[in-house]
């Protein structure tokens, strides 16, 4: 099994840490992992993306131009990464701020309105965990036990009281994701 | 009685919502919008009457977002202020 994922969005959306939790969880499940951010210029703001690979074999390249799954959280990222999903692959997106919805026919497209949901729950901070939940629903490549361990590993101890909340968000994400037909 | 009346215009797409202008307005007539601009920031708005055109907000704004106007409140202008 090798799962090659790109997660892309704005700087503040928790893109990198979502990737990090996924990667740590993979390690807990004894997988090989790699986490490769596109680090921005020496300036604030802008877009951010991270490539996460989970595999039970040695990972050759941490930098990819095609992905099994793309998780897309803003329009710029949609413009850039829709094309990079492998035929037959998966695209998951949050529709918030999306003006051009994905149009490819040769991939499966899922939508998760995590931003709205986070607002509703009053849990803006765990927006990214809702998205992660959605992804895990579609691709259960790591089990929830290991996600728990991954959260423990990647969050500093002083935030461990938040783990439950994060897990709740993951569960919620699993509930609200749904498949859409390309327009 | 020539009262001073002021007015500001805000380039909302460039506003970054830093609220420095709001802190500095002597008559508290500006506030943050509920909406976001294209960059994802809440932007500053003139919220009430009473601007005195002191330009504090424009002077402090790091992003050069604000244009300030001021007029003596006489003639038909006075009507408006009244």
């Amino acid at each position, binding site marked *: 099994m090798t799962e090659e994922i790109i997660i892309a969005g704005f700087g503040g959306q928790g893109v990198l840490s979502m990737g990090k939790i996924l990667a740590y969880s993979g390690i807990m499940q004894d997988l090989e992992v790699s986490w490769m951010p596109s680090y921005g210029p*020496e300036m604030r703001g802008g877009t951010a993306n991270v490539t996460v690979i989970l595999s039970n074999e040695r990972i050759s390249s941490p930098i990819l131009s095609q992905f099994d799954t793309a998780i897309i959280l803003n329009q710029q990222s949609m413009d850039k990464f829709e094309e990079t999903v492998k035929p037959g692959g998966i695209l998951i997106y949050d529709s918030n701020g999306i003006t051009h919805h994905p149009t490819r026919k040769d991939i499966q497209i899922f939508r998760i309105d995590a931003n709205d949901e986070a607002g509703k729950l009053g849990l803006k901070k765990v927006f990214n965990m809702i998205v992660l939940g959605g992804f895990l629903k579609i691709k259960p490549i790591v089990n929830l036990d290991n996600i728990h361990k991954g959260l423990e590993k990647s969050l500093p101890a002083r935030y461990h009281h938040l783990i439950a909340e994060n897990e709740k968000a993951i569960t919620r994400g699993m509930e609200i994701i749904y498949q859409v037909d390309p327009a | 009685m020539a009262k001073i*009346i002021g007015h500001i215009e805000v380039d*909302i797409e460039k506003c*970054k919502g830093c609220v420095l202008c709001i802190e*500095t307005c002597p008559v508290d007539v500006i506030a943050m919008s509920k909406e976001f601009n294209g960059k994802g920031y809440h932007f500053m708005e003139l919220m*009430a009457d009473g601007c005195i055109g002191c*330009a504090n907000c424009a002077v402090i*704004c790091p992003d050069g977002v604000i244009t*300030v106007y*001021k007029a003596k409140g006489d003639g038909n202008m006075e009507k408006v202020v009244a």
Partner: protein
Amino acid sequence: MSFETHKFNSHIAVPENLVYAKTPLMNDKPLSYCPGCGHGTIHRLIMETVEELDILEDTIGIAPVGCSVLAYEFMGTDVQQAAHGRACALATGISRLYPDKYVFTYQGDGDLAAIGTAETIHACNRGENIVIIFVNNGIYGMTGGQMAPTTLPGMKTSTSPFGREQKDAGYPLKMTELVAHLPGTYYVTRQSVHTPVNVRKAKKAIKKAFELTRHKKGVSFVELVSNCNSGWKMTPVDANKWMEENMFPFYPLGDIKVPSK
């Protein structure tokens, strides 16, 4: 530009009532700085000065690396981008070859007071006829908030995560006081842009600096104590307050060396 014109008294928004508008020498591009960052204000004051003195054709700016590395995108003057710390050397080169031009540098505290120490001291010592604008935010903004020579004692940065300790990193370096001791500096002042009053004072100082250049008086050195909300991890409003309470006692505002008539 999409202006939101409000109803309140919007009818007075006619040219003859204009009180304040961004100088056209500031380009229309949105600034790349964080919300509330002083760099934008300082850029504007310089451009206003250039406009008011009508010296655009004879002004050359120099912006080395630092958050303001892209200054050339925002300022309407000709600009050279310098290697880290070397702005004063570039300024020397240009000013010596064009003695009648207005050459200014725009430097951060990392740039001017760390790697560029020698170039700064020697340009000041030779009395180059230039304006040095020194934006002291006590941190390396651009590279993600590392300790600068001007970081305050106890201040936390990404390379002093437990607070700057005097025994390891020394005291904050007061470059402005230091260069004031050199005969080559003519006008040395420290200002800030965190209130409208201070902005207006800073503007006066900057304008005076450029006017002294016209009269070939040597180095005019204007320090602006400024904020770095991102580096300090504060909101702009809190940052300005923190600056007043913590930076100004260490870096008191006001003139340090003024031209004796």
